[in-house]
C-alpha cells in the first residue's frame, strides 16, 4: 500500500516538474497570429502603373506629384531624333483624404486635357483574422478637352468636351515580388469624331509588376478594347517598363504605343502599332510629399 502510494506520488510529481514544453511553441498555441488582421501593403510602388493607375491610393495627408512624359515614335528616325523631338506631357497631383480615398487632378498638353478623379479603396487584401484575397479600388474620373476645334465656325455645346471614366482595379500581391492587376473600364465620350464611333467604349486592362531587387521593378500593362467599332479602328495599348525607387521618388521608364496619359486618351485613342515600330519612350517621375507635419 505504502509503495503504491509512494509511486503514485512520484509519478504525480514527475508529471508536473518534468513537463518542459518549448516556450515558443507554447506561445504559438496561446496567442495564435489569427487574432490579428494584416493588410497587405506595397502591392505596387506607386499610384501609377504606367499609363493607367494601380489599386494603390495616396495615404492620408499625402500629396503625390507626378510628371509624365511621352516622346514621339522611335520609327521617325534621325530627323525627329527617334521621337525625342516631340513630347507629350502630363502633370498631376493626387491627395489622400484618408487611407482609402484620394482625389486627383491633372493637365496634359494632349488635346489640352484637364482631368480629375476620385479613387476609393473598396476592399483591401489582408491575411490573419479577416482575410481577403484582393484589393479593389474604384475610380470615377472626368476629362475636359480644352483645345480649340479645327473648325471654329461650328458652335459645339460645352458638354461635347467632357469624357467620363468608370474603372475598377482588382489587384493581388501574390508574392513579395509578383503583383497582378485586372482593371475593367468603361469610358463615355459625349462627342466622337464620326457617326460610327462608339460613345461608350469598354476595355479590360491587365497589368503587373515583378520586383527584381528591392528597388528595381519590371512593370507591364495592356488594355484590351472590347469588340466594337473602336476596337476595329484603334489598337490596344501596351506598355512595358522598369521602375526605380529611391526614398520618396519613383522613377519609371518605359516604351508604349500610346501617346496620351489619361484613360480617355490612351485606352480608346491609341493609334500606334508595336510591330510597325510606332512606339515611344516615356517616363514618369512620381514624388511623394507627406503633409502630416
Amino acid at each position, binding site marked *: 500500500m*505504502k509503495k503504491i*502510494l*509512494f509511486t*503514485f*506520488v512520484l509519478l*504525480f*510529481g514527475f508529471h*508536473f*516538474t518534468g513537463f518542459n514544453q518549448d*516556450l*515558443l511553441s*507554447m*506561445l504559438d498555441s*496561446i*496567442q495564435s*497570429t489569427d487574432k*490579428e488582421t*494584416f493588410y497587405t*501593403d*506595397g502591392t505596387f510602388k506607386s499610384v501609377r502603373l504606367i499609363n493607367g493607375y494601380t489599386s494603390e491610393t495616396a*495615404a*492620408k495627408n*499625402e500629396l503625390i506629384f507626378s510628371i509624365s512624359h511621352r516622346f514621339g515614335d522611335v520609327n521617325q528616325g534621325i530627323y525627329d531624333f527617334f521621337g525625342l523631338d516631340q513630347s507629350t506631357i502630363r502633370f498631376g497631383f493626387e491627395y489622400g483624404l484618408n*487611407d482609402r480615398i484620394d482625389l486627383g487632378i491633372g493637365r496634359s498638353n494632349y488635346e489640352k486635357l484637364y482631368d480629375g478623379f476620385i479613387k476609393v479603396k473598396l476592399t483591401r487584401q489582408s491575411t490573419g483574422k479577416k482575410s481577403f484575397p484582393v484589393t479593389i479600388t474604384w475610380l470615377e474620373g472626368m476629362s475636359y478637352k480644352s483645345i480649340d476645334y479645327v473648325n471654329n465656325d461650328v458652335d459645339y455645346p460645352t458638354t461635347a468636351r467632357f469624357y467620363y471614366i468608370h474603372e475598377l482595379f482588382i489587384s493581388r500581391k501574390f508574392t*513579395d515580388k509578383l503583383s497582378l492587376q485586372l482593371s475593367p473600364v468603361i469610358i463615355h465620350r459625349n462627342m466622337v469624331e464620326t457617326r460610327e464611333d462608339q460613345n461608350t467604349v469598354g476595355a479590360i486592362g491587365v497589368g503587373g509588376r515583378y520586383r527584381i531587387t*528591392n*528597388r528595381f521593378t519590371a512593370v507591364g500593362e495592356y488594355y484590351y478594347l472590347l469588340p466594337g467599332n473602336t476596337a476595329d479602328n484603334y489598337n490596344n495599348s501596351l506598355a512595358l517598363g522598369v521602375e526605380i525607387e*529611391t*526614398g*520618396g521618388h519613383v522613377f519609371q521608364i518605359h516604351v508604349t504605343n500610346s501617346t496620351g496619359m489619361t484613360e480617355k486618351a490612351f485606352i480608346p485613342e491609341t493609334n500606334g502599332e508595336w510591330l510597325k515600330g510606332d512606339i515611344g519612350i516615356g517616363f514618369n517621375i512620381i514624388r*511623394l510629399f*507627406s503633409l*502630416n*507635419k
Partner: protein
Amino acid sequence: MKKILILFVLIILSIKYASSQDLYIVSNGDVHFTSDAPLELIEAESNKLNGILKVSDRSFVFRVPMKTFEGFNSALQQTHFNENYLESAKYPHTIFEGKIIEEIDFNTPGTHNVRGKGSFTCHGVKQQRIIRCRVSVGQNKITVKTDFSVLLEDHNIKIPSVVSQKIAEEITVDVNLELVPK
C-alpha cells in the same frame, strides 16, 4: 503512516497548484523604436508584443510581429520598412528568447535590475545578447521595462547610400511589458 502519506500527496498537489502560477504571459506589450539620423528622426511603435515567462527556470520568449509597427513619418516609410529593410513577409517576427541570469524571488513584491541572456533574432539574423532590464514583481503581475539598441549591421539590414543620412545605424528600442499568470 497513512496520514503522513496523505499530507505528502497534499504537498505535491499544492506544488501542482503553484506550478500553474509558473507561467506568466504578456497582457500588455509595447515596443517603441527610434532612428535618430542627421537628417531625419523616425519613430514607430507596436503594442502587439507577446511572450511567456517561466518563473521556475527564469526562461522567457518574447516576440513582436514586424508588420504591427505603426507611426513613421509617412505611410510610404512604413511600406519601405516592411518591404525593403525588414522584409517582414520573409521574416515576420523579431524574437528574444533566453533566460534571466539573476535569481529573483517571484513570490514577494519588489523591483530588481536583472539581465536577460539569450538569442535576439531580427531580420532572420540571430545574435547572442545580454539585455539589462528592470523587473517589478507585484501582486499577480510582473512588469518589465528595458531599453537597448540594435545595430542594423548586426542584422544584415542594408541602407543604400542615398538614404544613409536619413536612417540611423543604431536603433534605440524601448520595451514596456506587463505579464499576468496564465
